């Protein structure tokens, strides 16, 4: 039971990251390949403040949010004017820098030895983990409500226009640079928040948590679910993380003699689903034709 709660709480973190990527890439067109960087910066920042400098959790969380927002804003100023592919490389490089600094700056992060233990911000006995799950659920629901509002708002229309043709939007008097920077800062800071909240979940932080495969897992989930649809992120993570990592890997009832095959079987099935979706629904399970994208949204 404890493992299940841990797993679905972690799944909520992935849903949150995918939702934020939906705003960044699906709506605004910023290809952020540095998700693990913002998430990891948040996680390690809370870890360092909490373990090394004895901050209690809530002040550490607030400082972390400010730090990640500041870093995202600085990075945004440097890269948001670039072409898509350059932004992709820059964000990927950013996440590599974060991961490397965590290894090299041992005085701060304990390097490869690892940093711990980060306790939950409250102690409710056996109810601690379920309550923590509820907090993350609230955050994810909150982000989803924001996305739904954003899709039908005037700002949403402006965001879609920037994704479609930024130069044209600017020629109509829209300060596209400012809007992009604001949204990039906000969404990256929220990625940092999810990282900060992941710290007590993992309890012990090591640099090998900051590998690019976190970024790729979020990207695959979003693309699979449908990057332009407001619910694409949620569905995508349910399929990738929920169905494969959780259900098949951990809870599929198989005879012990076949259990050894499960990981390979899972990988095979995962690949098959990915190929099938990309072949028959290239815009994701919830995606539709380019021109109809907005009409059918909630």
């Amino acid at each position, binding site marked *: 039971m404890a493992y299940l709660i841990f797993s679905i709480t972690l799944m909520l973190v992935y849903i949150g990251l995918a939702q934020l990527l939906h705003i960044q890439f699906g709506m605004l067109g910023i290809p952020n390949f540095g998700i693990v960087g913002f998430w990891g910066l948040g996680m390690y920042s809370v870890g360092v403040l909490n373990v090394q400098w004895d901050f209690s959790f809530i002040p550490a969380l607030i400082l972390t949010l400010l730090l990640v927002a500041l870093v995202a804003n600085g990075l945004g100023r440097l890269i948001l004017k670039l072409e898509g592919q350059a932004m992709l490389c820059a964000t990927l490089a950013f996440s590599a820098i974060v991961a490397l600094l965590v290894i090299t700056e041992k005085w701060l992060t304990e390097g490869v030895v690892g940093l711990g233990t980060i306790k939950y911000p409250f102690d409710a006995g056996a109810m601690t983990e379920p309550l923590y799950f509820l907090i993350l659920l609230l955050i994810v629901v909150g982000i989803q409500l924001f996305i739904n509002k954003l899709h039908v708002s005037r700002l949403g229309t402006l965001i*879609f226009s920037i994704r479609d043709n930024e130069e044209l939007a600017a020629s*109509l008097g829209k300060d596209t640079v400012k809007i992009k920077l604001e949204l990039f800062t906000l969404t990256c800071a929220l990625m940092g928040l999810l990282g900060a909240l992941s710290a007590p979940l993992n309890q012990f932080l090591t640099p090998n948590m900051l590998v690019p495969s976190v970024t790729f897992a979020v990207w695959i989930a979003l693309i699979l679910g449908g990057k332009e649809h407001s619910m694409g992120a949620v569905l995508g993570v349910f399929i990738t993380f929920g169905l494969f990592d959780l259900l098949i890997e951990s809870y599929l009832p198989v005879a012990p003699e076949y259990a050894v095959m499960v990981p390979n079987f899972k990988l095979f099935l995962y690949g098959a689903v990915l190929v099938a979706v990309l072949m028959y629904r290239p815009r994701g399970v919830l995606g539709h034709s380019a021109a109809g994208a907005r009409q059918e949204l909630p």
Partner: protein
Amino acid sequence: MMNLAVRNLSKSYHQHPVLNLTQASFGKHSIEGLIGPNGAGKSTLMGLLTRRIPPTEGSIIFEVEDKHHDLIPLSSHQVAQIGLVKTNQRIQGFESLTIRDSLRLACTPPTQETLKSVFSKEQLSEAVEAEIDDYLSRFTFNEPDGYARSAGEKKLLDILRCLILKPKMLLMDEPTAGLPEDVTQQVMQEITRQTKANDMRIVIVEHDLELIWSFCEYVHFLVDGEMLFEGKPEDVKANRVVAEKYLGL
């Protein structure tokens, strides 16, 4: 009094000069034309004026309603905000916005496009919606609440999007390219009406010379990045240099 004045404006790509204007000014007449052979630098000039293209050097001053705007330090959205707007030669649009949403986008003030506004219920004013309805009733689109599908519809939408911004000066880069003849006439009548009603100024870049002669009060003739001649349409038509370089007479 409106004046868009250019001094010593030049643009070079990799040391290859495409525009070198000592002096030019637009906006003294309500509709002006800018003509010249292909590659003369007409579109480059329009891009420079709206700050979409950075100039190599020179100054651009926009005087409107007793205000004096130096356009060089501004970015393109700021130029649009002070009332200098351009329609596009190349077909451009927002593929995920409906025709109506596209016009709404142009009308929405920045205060309704902030993060805070996501949670407010504030809508566009009824007057603005009525204006959009008015445009959509007078100009025919196949599906006004759907998407602009044909090249003609996209081009028309591009022009309407600029008109609904109520610019002080509108630059039109080949407005008739891609527009059916009857729509062209309708657009020209509309802008003529608006120059009178709203004191708007128009500069048209066009290869359709019949249109230039019949609508423009003043014509600029650009060749190889330099303004060779300017004057009333009859003077431009009669000019020997224009005839040789462009009209092929």
